[in-house]
């Protein structure tokens, strides 16, 4: 087998306490994304919490509430548990410095995750090369939509039906494969529509064509989903209340249910068909239904016993879960760390951890050039698609560049993040066929559209638009080519100047991962990721003891308390300071076609 051969070769390399992910046939796009998310501690932690919560719910009610739709989330968590245990094994081996211990696995094989991921997202079915950005969207959405059965997008602006329809009509409703079913406006059967997503795209003619900040931004069709989920939860509660042994889990579930009900929007006319739930389904429509309301409902329905005897330790189910999942000591430790916050944070948990971690709000302003009235619209975004300056053409500058008649200076040619952000936020003129309907003028007028950030997420993703389309005059078709020009990446950036309210929110960000596309065309190539590991100081230290001749070399890295890693499928390399500095400046040694594609920043305090 190919993999074994590679493993064999690998043994000649020094053992380091990092785990690779094996390529299962053109899955480098997935591996790079998985590695980045693995080194995003908030994500891993929240993932674990959510999964435990779901698991509890599932265990309670095996008949009605199957965990099948949480497969991706579950498998991802298992994969990460696996990676952790592998890493711990390596550390163990390194620290013991003994030959007795068996050679630990240096990489994991995400077979099961891949299976479920492909089932859910037919786009990734074939063993073909895929876009890492698209893959990231799919994983995040899978986790986001599934994280809690009653979750809903935080942004309430899209909740009005009219708004949603408008979005579908006015903008292009992309029938990308991510979208399993098109949004249904039929309020008659909420139960059949489980995970309906809307993908919003900007009109293709706009500057942000196809890679807008809201690219493939998926939103739950809230009115439909919440109603369906509500039904699930209620059934669950009823069943569980009939089983006295489940007492232990009540409080926790109650926490979930309270959230679910208080956040559900007024559902469609017939939210629930189940007769038992009629009283609560009526009330579920009102937004602020509190715990008292729930008690009342259940009192009516003679579930008072269940409600009143609620004070019992919640630890029990967690232990049970741990028993199941924990196989090795290392694993147990990891679980413990991860599960601990569950007890304390469970009630304060927000609906959708993906929303919390990865989504921000962007404010789009359109100013009419005729009457100079401004209209504002805010939209959630997961990543920010930034332009990359093509190095060959200097006249393709943005509208705000007033010097575009004279050729720009040479040093200007390599764009950096600040330049790209300015370009992104700069006014985009809606003219010609693209005019905008101004309500004040009662007509189509020219307008200027600009974007600023209203709210920034803890994990900020930048997507570099490395495509340029050109019309092939011979074949009469457009060809998409890759822009390979150099793009400087600052390790730290302050986004204050692109924010709506410059005084408010924290705006400082620090780079922690880069996904790199290697290859000269857009259709093929290879993905790998550069990741900064800030947590593994100890591991690294142990490793340094083991391989003495590396101590000197590694010392610089230990000192800086951060280790940059190059994750290339199953291969993991530690990058030295100089290499990473060069990479950030756009110099990838001999790999000319290596270009940063996705940048991940953490919010810093």
């Amino acid at each position, binding site marked *: 087998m190919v993999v074994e051969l590679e493993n064999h070769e690998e043994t000649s390399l020094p053992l380091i306490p990092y785990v690779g992910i094996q390529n299962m046939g053109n899955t480098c796009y997935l591996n790079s994304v998985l590695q980045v998310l693995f080194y995003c501690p908030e994500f891993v932690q929240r993932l674990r919490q959510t999964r435990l919560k779901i698991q509890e719910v599932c265990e309670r009610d095996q008949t009605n509430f199957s965990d099948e739709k949480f497969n991706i989330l579950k498998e991802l968590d298992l994969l990460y548990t696996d990676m952790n245990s592998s890493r711990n094994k390596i550390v163990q081996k390194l620290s013991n410095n003994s030959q007795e211990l068996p050679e630990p696995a240096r990489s994991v094989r995400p077979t099961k995750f891949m299976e479920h991921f492909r089932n859910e997202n037919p786009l990734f079915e074939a063993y073909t090369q895929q876009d890492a950005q698209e893959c990231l969207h799919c994983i995040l959405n899978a986790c986001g939509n599934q994280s809690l059965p009653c979750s809903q997008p935080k942004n309430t602006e899209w909740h009005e039906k009219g708004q949603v329809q408008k979005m579908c009509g006015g903008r292009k409703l992309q029938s990308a494969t991510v979208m399993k079913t098109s949004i249904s406006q039929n309020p008659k059967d909420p139960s059949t529509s489980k995970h309906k997503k809307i993908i919003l795209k900007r009109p293709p003619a706009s500057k942000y064509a196809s890679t807008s900040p809201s690219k493939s931004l998926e939103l739950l069709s809230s009115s439909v989903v919440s109603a369906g989920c509500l039904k699930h939860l209620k059934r669950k509660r009823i069943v569980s209340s009939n089983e006295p042994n489940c007492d232990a889990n009540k409080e926790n579930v109650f926490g979930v249910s309270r959230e679910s009900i208080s956040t559900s929007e007024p559902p469609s006319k017939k939210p629930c068909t189940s007769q038992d739930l009629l009283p609560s389904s009526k009330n579920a429509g009102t937004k602020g239904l509190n715990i008292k309301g729930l008690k009342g409902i259940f009192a009516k329905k003679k579930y008072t016993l269940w409600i009143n005897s609620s004070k019992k330790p919640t630890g029990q189910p967690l232990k049970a879960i741990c028993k199941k999942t924990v196989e090795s000591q290392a694993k147990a430790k990891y679980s413990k760390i991860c599960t601990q916050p569950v007890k304390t944070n469970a009630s304060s948990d927000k609906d959708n951890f993906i929303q919390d971690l990865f989504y921000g709000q962007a404010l789009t302003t359109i100013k009419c*050039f005729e009457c*100079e009235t401004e209209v504002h619209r805010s939209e959630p975004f997961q990543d920010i698609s930034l332009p990359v300056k093509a190095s060959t053409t200097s006249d393709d500058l943005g509208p705000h560049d*007033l010097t575009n008649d004279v050729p720009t200076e040479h040093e200007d040619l390599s764009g950096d993040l600040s330049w790209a952000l300015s370009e992104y936020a700069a006014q985009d003129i809606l003219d010609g066929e693209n005019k905008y309907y101004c309500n004040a003028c009662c007509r189509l007028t020219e307008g200027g559209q600009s974007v600023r950030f209203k709210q920034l997420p803890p994990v900020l993703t930048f997507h570099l638009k490395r495509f340029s389309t050109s019309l092939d005059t011979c074949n009469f078709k457009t060809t998409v080519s890759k822009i390979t020009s150099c793009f400087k990446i600052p390790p730290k950036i302050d986004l204050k100047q692109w924010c709506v309210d410059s005084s408010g929110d924290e705006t400082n960000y620090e780079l922690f991962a880069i996904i790199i596309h290697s290859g000269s065309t857009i259709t093929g190539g290879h993905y790998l990721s550069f990741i900064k590991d800030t947590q593994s100081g100890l591991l690294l230290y142990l490793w340094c003891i083991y391989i003495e001749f590396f101590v000197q070399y590694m010392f610089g890295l230990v000192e800086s308390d951060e280790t940059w890693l190059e994750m290339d499928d199953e291969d993991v390399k530690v990058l030295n300071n100089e290499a990473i500095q060069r990479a950030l400046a756009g110099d990838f040694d001999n790999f000319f076609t290596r270009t940063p594609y996705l940048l991940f920043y953490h919010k810093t305090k």
Partner: protein
Amino acid sequence: MHPRRDLAASRKKIQVSYVIRDVVEKYNRSGVNALQVDPTNNRLYTGGRDSIIRVWNTESKNQQEADPYVASMEHHTDWVNDIVLCCNGRTLISASSDTTVKVWNAHRKFCMSTLRTHKDYVRSLAYARDKEHVASAGLDRQIFIWDVNTLTSLTTTHNTVTTSNVSGCKNSIYSVAMNDPGTVLAAGSTERVIRVWDPRTCEKRMKLKGHTDNVKALLITRDGTHLLSGSSDGTIKLWSLGQQRCLATLPIHREGVWTLTTVFDSPSSFGCVYSSGRDGRVMCSDFRHPDCNSYVVCEESAPVLRLQLDGKSTPERIYCATTNSSVHSWPVKPESDKVDVENMEGSEIQDRLFDDEKPYSEKPCYSIPGAACITQYKVLSDKRHILTQDTHNRVVLWDVLMAKAVEDLGCVDFDVEVKNREKILYVPNWFSVDLKLGLLSIHLEERECFSAWMTARDVPGFEESDPVTKINYGGLLLRALLEHWPETHVLRDEKSTESDDMDESSSQSSPSKSSLPRKPGPGGNPFFKVPRHTPVIFSESGGRTLFRLLCEDAAGKTEGVSLRETVPQWVVQTVVENRIPAPFVKLSFFLQPHPSSGIKATKNTNNKLLANDMLTIGKVMEHVHEKIICAGDDASQSSGNGGSGQGDKSDGEPSVSDSSDPHKDTTTSVENKVELFCGEQSLEPEWNLRTVKHLIWRSGNDMILQYRLKT
């Protein structure tokens, strides 16, 4: 016969529009974009957003004295953005958002020619007085320079115009200016740069950078050495063209500066410059003074779109056009006042400037009244009437078919009136509305124009005709709009298609002007006419106007030729060939006994039925009564047998027909016997199937209607 029809088809889709308006629209309906004064004849010209250029008599200063209105010049179909009076007031040039520039005989008030070189809204005009050259510029980034003397000498045979084209602007142009001798041309655009050319050679001269937003107003001194610019960034900048730099910046406006005007008393510098814009404050700045000190002339309640000075030798008053429809004239400080300003100390001037100082004039000395502008509308559920509210808060009910106002409800609550008129009725959309002119413009497009079929007896006012006649709103309206076109009086094809009931009833109501020995055709429609003065406009969908005429003018010879060239095929089919391209819409539904009715569902009761979507529930009740209840057991038996082989039956064979019922009075009696339900909702007999489907059933699936006997 129609050489250009193929061409028309290959072009963009052509839509038909018309404006619902009075015979004479005496007063500006909406904002006024442009002003010009003819001092020798005491005339003021206004270019309005209602597409009309109006001429006013400025001699009658006292409003009570006489009506200032003199005449209207109508040919544009969209906002008039700018006008220029040239050749000593003989010729007027106008620029419009209908993408055309028009040349008018200002004295005889007719349109001499239409220049169609621009491809987007024409936003601004510039005038070189000495050479009688006019430059037009617009959102298509193009500037054309026209020789007015050539334009006015155009005839039908000699109609080629050679112009110079100034290129190089990268963004939409919002302002353009030339000096009187025509040696300097400047353009302001959303590029935020002022570009300067030599119009004689069309060569670029320079770019002036400094403004941070769109440049909407420009003035150039006679000798072309200095330039003044007003920008959306709220500043006015004075530039030296020789040094290519900004000499002064005046941040005297709170918002965008949209208009500048002055009287040049020296060839090389500016004197008193009047400016205004979005903040509605009219400022006067003295550029002879080193501090360019300013005072507030007056304050308008709406954003000021244009200023125009008037006075025989020195400016006495200033005309102020705003986004409101009225035009005010304000007194300005006489020359002598300027001396005071000069004597003031610098610091004092600064204090005065940023104080909330009182305007020089509190009241306009004279006003040209404006008419109400429609600001909101609601198409009622019958898709025939529109309720509107205007700037005077009047609520008016309009009839789209008749193209006129039906009822003036006065100053009432718009939303309440809309609510009062809500009906359980569904008619498909067949037209679209816009209010850009401040009047109702109705647009008909091929895609949806014919989608509203009605049964004549359901349409108020049409009851007298054969009750089962099917009428098509779009078709009838097109015929009414073009009824004076001789072409429509010639029956080319004696096709009797689905609209044959129309043929029967179509009398030769409209006098056939055609002397051709052909058989007279439909010519209009038997139900209604539109007012003869209604403007009918053919344009590319959402774009350029191709042809505008008044309804009655279609009889004219030249108009007939133009119509033949522009009327799109889908309209010709209807008005000339007498065919409505859209078939009736059939709806399929199930009829089942209501669970509470006690009638057992027999096999045939599950049969799918097919009917026109405008069939009334009363007719369905009749069907239930006759075919299911009265027919008794043997009928249901026989059809039940047939029901087993239902699949073989030709498309939805069991159908409810609308065929004229001789015993009409049964309908009323049937209502008392049969009840129909859709879901929980009991259905009224006057509703029709599509109404039930869209407003009650609300699903794409086949509708299920349930019946029961009334007890």
